[in-house]
């Protein structure tokens, strides 16, 4: 009996094959057809080690696969190129068993060597991957270089063993990030720095054409290892298109999904027309828009002042400014994120109470400060609303309307007393509560140049966060979420932020697009999950 217990504890493996069948593609889906997606900006790169914007994220997801993946339209993990995995008792060793017979777009079979090569590549400083830091828990990360990671071992052609230097409950999410995509070495070597323009993966689509500044064409990977998908024969991405014009073209039947969404100026018109509104899918998004209050700059070093500002902001009115495309926020985590604290009301709008708090802090006459904001619509208008709300309790906030890069610089340098995060607001890298803490609220991010613009650093909360992330055992997932919920409640007690709203996603599609709504507001694939959508007719 004792023996049996021990062996089950060693094997915390999940019943993976069962989980893999959790998602059945739409039975009515019809294969074939081509869709057109438009974007204003160029696609930067399709190299999974480099690409890190919301535009190329979902494109890369469709060309490449990692060991882990998500059930389409949800935040639930499912296996990708790994058929199954085991986690050791101490949470430090992950053994992944790979699917057999998976082929890269160049026809070669994917093996464990490729997995190791890909992880070595993304962490090699020469690759300059913005996502290298996500792999910090893997043993040997500190010495990552041309010789690769000592913590990643090839056991046999279909088995990879990854050893961690510390338990990391988010590790499976990390393995689902684009940065962990499996790439073939020979294709990377051949393309060199141009791999981002000549990507080769195992994904549902392969790149067929890329005319710089004009269009990209994805073609169906007929040998894709997931049976039955993708449905579309090809996807055309047209770049350099003004969102307003993209909408006109959609109304004219030339475009299927405007990648940049519905332009603010046209939002009321579209939603006011039942025929068009019916083709808009609304969904939550792992996003929070917030105001940072720099705790190192007086008078925001006083807790009363930070609480007063939290109570002074009329969040309802700010959501109206963006046509109600958001819900007022009460806490750092968005409602669709696991770990969100249900029932917490946050700081209610109460200008009188805010004034009283200011008086308590010895600032009954108010004070003067600066509010930094990115200069693209609607952010300056939101900043003006914030300015008015603050004026009502006696605070004079002068608006610094700057380009994004300059706001980020001021935030990192710690010279900005207040920043409205709009246009730079946090959208999760992966659907786990820890992703909203470290870089933007933790001590690590508070260093010079970091994204923790409040410069808020609470060692006790940091310790709690570390403790939560070492709860790797899937059986303790609920406890871990509770621990994270406590961390964010601790943050709210200190009030370094004013959480303002959580943006909703509004994806517009053409009449002929099929597939369930969840695919059009997929939390990890923006604007849509290309692998599972299809066209009628």
């Amino acid at each position, binding site marked *: 009996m004792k023996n049996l217990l021990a062996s089950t504890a060693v094997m915390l493996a999940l019943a993976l094959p069962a989980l893999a069948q959790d998602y059945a593609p739409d039975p009515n889906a019809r294969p074939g057809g081509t869709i057109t997606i438009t974007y204003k900006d160029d696609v930067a790169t399709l190299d999974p080690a480099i690409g890190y914007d919301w535009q190329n994220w979902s494109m890369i997801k469709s060309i490449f696969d990692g060991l882990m993946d998500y059930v389409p339209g949800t935040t639930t993990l499912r296996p990708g190129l790994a058929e199954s995995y085991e986690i050791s008792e101490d949470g430090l060793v992950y053994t992944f068993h790979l699917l057999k017979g998976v082929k890269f777009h160049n026809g070669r079979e994917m093996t464990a060597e490729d997995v190791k090569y890909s992880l070595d590549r993304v962490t090699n*400083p020469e690759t300059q991957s913005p996502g290298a830091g996500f792999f910090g828990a893997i043993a040997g990360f500190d010495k990552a270089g041309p010789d690769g990671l000592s913590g990643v071992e090839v056991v046999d052609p279909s088995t990879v063993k990854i050893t961690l230097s510390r338990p990391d409950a988010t590790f499976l999410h990390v393995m689902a990030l684009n940065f962990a995509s499996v790439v073939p070495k020979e294709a990377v070597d051949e393309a060199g720095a141009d791999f981002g323009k000549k990507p080769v993966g195992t994904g549902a689509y392969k790149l067929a054409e890329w005319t710089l500044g004009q269009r990209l064409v994805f073609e169906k990977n007929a040998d894709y290892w997931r049976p039955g998908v993708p449905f579309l024969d090809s996807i055309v991405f047209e770049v350099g298109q003004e969102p307003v014009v993209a909408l006109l*073209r959609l109304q004219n039947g030339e475009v299927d999904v405007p990648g940049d969404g519905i332009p603010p100026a046209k939002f009321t018109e579209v939603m006011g027309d039942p025929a068009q509104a019916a083709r808009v899918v609304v969904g939550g998004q792992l996003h929070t828009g917030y105001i940072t209050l720099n705790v190192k700059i007086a008078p925001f070093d006083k807790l009363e002042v930070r609480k007063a500002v939290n109570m002074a902001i009329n969040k309802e009115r700010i959501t109206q400014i963006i046509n109600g495309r958001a819900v007022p926020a009460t806490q750092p985590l968005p409602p669709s994120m696991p770990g969100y604290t249900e029932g917490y009301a946050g700081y209610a709008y109460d200008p009188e109470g805010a004034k009283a708090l200011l008086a308590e802090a010895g600032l009954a006459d108010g004070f003067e400060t600066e509010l930094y904001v990115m200069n693209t619509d609607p952010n300056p208008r939101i900043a003006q609303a914030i300015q008015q709300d603050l004026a009502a309790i006696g605070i004079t906030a002068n608006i610094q309307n700057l380009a994004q890069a300059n706001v980020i610089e001021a935030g990192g340098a710690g010279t900005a007393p207040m920043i409205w995060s709009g246009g730079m607001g946090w959208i999760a890298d992966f659907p786990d509560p820890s992703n909203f803490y470290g870089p933007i609220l933790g001590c690590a991010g508070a260093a010079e140049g970091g*994204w923790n613009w409040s410069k808020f650093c609470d060692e006790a909360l940091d310790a709690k966060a570390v403790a939560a992330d070492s709860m790797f055992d899937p059986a303790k997932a609920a406890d871990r979420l509770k621990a994270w919920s406590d961390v964010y409640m601790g943050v709210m007690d200190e009030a370094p932020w004013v959480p303002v709203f959580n943006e909703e996603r509004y994806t517009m599609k053409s009449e002929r697009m099929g597939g369930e709504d969840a695919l059009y507001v997929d939390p990890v694939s923006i604007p849509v999950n290309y692998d599972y959508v299809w066209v009628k007719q």
Partner: protein
Amino acid sequence: MAGYLIRRLVQAVLILLGVSFITFFLLYVLPADPVRQIAGRSATAQTVENIREQLGLDKPFVVQYARYLGALVQGDMGRSYLQKTEVAELILSRLPATLLLMVAAIVCELVLGLTMGIIAALWRGRAVDQTLMVTSFVTVSAPQFVVSLLLLYVFAVKLGWFPIGGYGTFAHLVLPAVTLAILGSGWYSRMMRSSMIDVLRADYIRTARAKGLSRARIVLRHALPNAILPVIAMIGIDIGVFMGGIVVVESVFGWPGIGQLAWQAIQRVDIPIIMGVTLVSACAIVLGNLLADLIAPFIDPRIRLR
């Protein structure tokens, strides 16, 4: 002539050197860190420092600038920080579209602007002159975004005469070229008008009139070649403006020109692209002006290049 050309080319190189230095310096002192843009929000301090080192952005200004120039004289404009693609490739891929739109727009501008300017000068002070000048004032000050969208909406969406943006056929070219011509012809018509008025006052025109030449002959044969010189100089400047990019018109009509590339690069502090586009457009201005100066003697033999 040869001596003149050599002198002008040496000048051009010095100008380009100056432009490259000033642009590089401004980008260096700009309170925005390109490494932050590349590294993104989740990057650890270690990742940030690593990228800075790999790109040589940790070196002093002089070293960075010298490296850039050194690569540049070997024909290497570097790689985009974010796209990782060669800057030369990015610019070259957009050059045909930019040149096509530039030529088409300048031709339309000239036809429209010169006609308006000549008519206004001939009927100076009359209602037609005033109407034309007010019109040119309005078109010059009209917001590009509004005019572009208006034309697109009426002629492409409502009437369906042209495609709704894009690039490839003659039909795609018409609307953006006409839009730019409407927006820019005002400059030409005003310049043509004043230059024409000056010429029409000249003694030789009075002589021609006294000889009993027809009005058309006087205007086209005697007045126009003399009045057009400042306009030609203006084309040289216009070329530079077009090469620097016409961001708004390009993005409304989905025209894959250099303007969109430059605009995106500026937003993302992608220094190699910003430098590349600046230098290419500076080259175009220098060459445009040089061409204008070289053409001038053929139109007006009194001008000699020394």
